[in-house]
């Protein structure tokens, strides 16, 4: 029934991330009234089961957002709210004209799709040395096949003087190339990237605050053990950000598999 799955608790309550406690309370009461059993607004359009499911989400959203501490924690986990918005380095507002579909009537910037390539490249160029991540080697140092012809006799360039790469650097370059070529974004790939970054699953639990069981289920693509879509979407976005992966692509890819599984397994309680 839902036209587009809400991506966070604010969307469930139709609020902005900067909503005041009073606004949260009003939105909660309004949402409850809309989907409660006797609401005339549901008539002929929304089934009782769908309304119940929405009510569950509304309750859960309110439980978190109405509690100052829990809301702060949730905002930080999901880079939401006033304190945890994407840093300037994260290119969520970048628009690449060459990736725009040929639309005759363009809306405002919010209507424009975030260009995955630009997003991706910028993310790759944001090594987080604090966490020991090293990404995106310069083009001149990328792995390439051996030249067929003898090297020219010209003086050696700066590049050619660089020391040989360590096995770890080669491994990281290899995973960078795989990330660049990735289209599926299954949980198993996220697990592979995590391992390549030498992050233990316990450490990832600490970094993302995602339950270990859910992390395992994501990496094993064991969709039956995952919670509702709205939470999974947040998990994947958080994982992607932590691993410095293009979050839009990762969420879109993973959720595509997850939604397909839900459609094929309608009796799994979602």
């Amino acid at each position, binding site marked *: 029934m839902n*036209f*587009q799955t809400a991506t966070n608790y604010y969307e469930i309550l139709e609020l902005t991330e900067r909503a005041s406690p009073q606004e949260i309370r009003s939105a909660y009461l309004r949402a409850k*009234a*809309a989907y409660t059993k006797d609401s005339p607004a549901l008539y*002929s359009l*929304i089934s009782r089961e769908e309304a119940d499911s929405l009510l569950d989400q509304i309750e859960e959203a309110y439980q978190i957002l109405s509690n100052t501490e829990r809301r702060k924690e949730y905002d930080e986990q999901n880079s939401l709210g006033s304190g945890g918005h994407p840093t300037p380095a994260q290119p969520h507002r970048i628009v690449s004209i060459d990736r725009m579909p040929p*639309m005759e009537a363009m809306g405002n910037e919010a209507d424009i799709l975030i260009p995955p390539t630009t997003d991706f490249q910028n993310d790759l160029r944001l090594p987080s040395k604090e966490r020991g991540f090293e990404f995106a080697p310069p083009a001149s140092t990328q792995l390439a096949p051996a030249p067929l012809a003898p090297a020219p006799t010209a003086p050696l360039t700066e590049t050619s003087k660089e020391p040989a790469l360590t096995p770890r650097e080669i491994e990281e370059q290899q995973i960078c190339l795989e990330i660049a070529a990735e289209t599926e974004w299954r949980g198993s790939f996220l697990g592979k990237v995590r391992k390549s970054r030498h992050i233990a699953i316990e450490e990832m639990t600490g970094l993302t605050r995602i339950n270990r069981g859910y992390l395992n289920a994501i990496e094993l693509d064991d969709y039956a053990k995952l919670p509702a879509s709205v939470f999974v979407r947040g998990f994947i976005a958080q994982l992607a950000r932590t691993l410095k992966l293009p979050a839009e692509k990762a969420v879109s890819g993973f959720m595509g598999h997850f939604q397909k599984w839900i459609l094929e397994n309608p009796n799994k309680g979602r």
Partner: protein
Amino acid sequence: MANQDSRPIFPPPFTLPSAPIASTPAGRVKQVWAVGGGKGGVGKSLLASSLAISLARRNFKTVAIDLDLGGANLHTTLGVDLPRHTLSDFLSRHDHSLKNSLVNTGIPNLEMISGAKDSIGVANLPMDQQTRLLQELRTLDADYVVLDLGAGTGASTIDFFLSADVGMVAILPEPTSIENAYRFIKSAYYRKLATSSHLEPVAAIIQTALDPNNSLGIRSPSDLFREVNRASQEAGVRLKEVIDRFQPRLVMNQARTQTDIDVGFSVKSVCRKYFGIDLDYVGYLDYDSAVWQSVRRKRPVMLEFPNSRLVTSIERVTESLLKK
């Protein structure tokens, strides 16, 4: 594979004359407002006539047009006797200009075109006449044109609604009214998608979706969105754009309690979840016995009971619409 055998609800798509026509040298119309709602008796004519009077009072030159073909009575709510010239003259004679059907209402700045004295079957307006009417109304010498649409979801009614700059859906806080309003919104929604030139590459999928028992399993707008995205992600982006531009206004009539007023917000929320649209809840009209009293006197409630709560709430809705 799209079900090619599914029969569309509507006639073949055509380009809806819309806002761009307003910029033609012959026209000065700033905006066309249309009042629909699906169900009869929800106050469409009351709302249309009251909005027209409210606009005229603000010194906007206004024309109210009764497009409730087959059930016209806008002239009565405006306190005008059965007019000599009506829309039927325009529709039956190709040499007859729409301007010649204008009738003075006796209210400064307000003229009307009545839909009374129509011929049997006029409710099913032929496409060429519909197009001619939609084009000519943009050329009228008026700041605002207010359309009073008929009940139901006939193709003409939906096209008139979609061609307006501001499309209002009038509802009552009752299940029957809400059911018909959803049906009306759904018809306009799919009609808008089916006539959008931006969505031609996925027109077959949209036509398939019009059949409620279609083979693709499209039972709701979210299903359609899924199928279109599956066919082409670019088409999915375009679909979202077209949907974002569909922004009907909602007016709750006969609100007796705060709960009644809140039903409007609930309808807005449900429409966001179900259709993915941002329904604009522009206001509510208080239940007021002034309405039936003025109807019996065949006088506009705006003039007969100028200090009533209803008139205050109509002025509020007008103000809200003008600010958009």
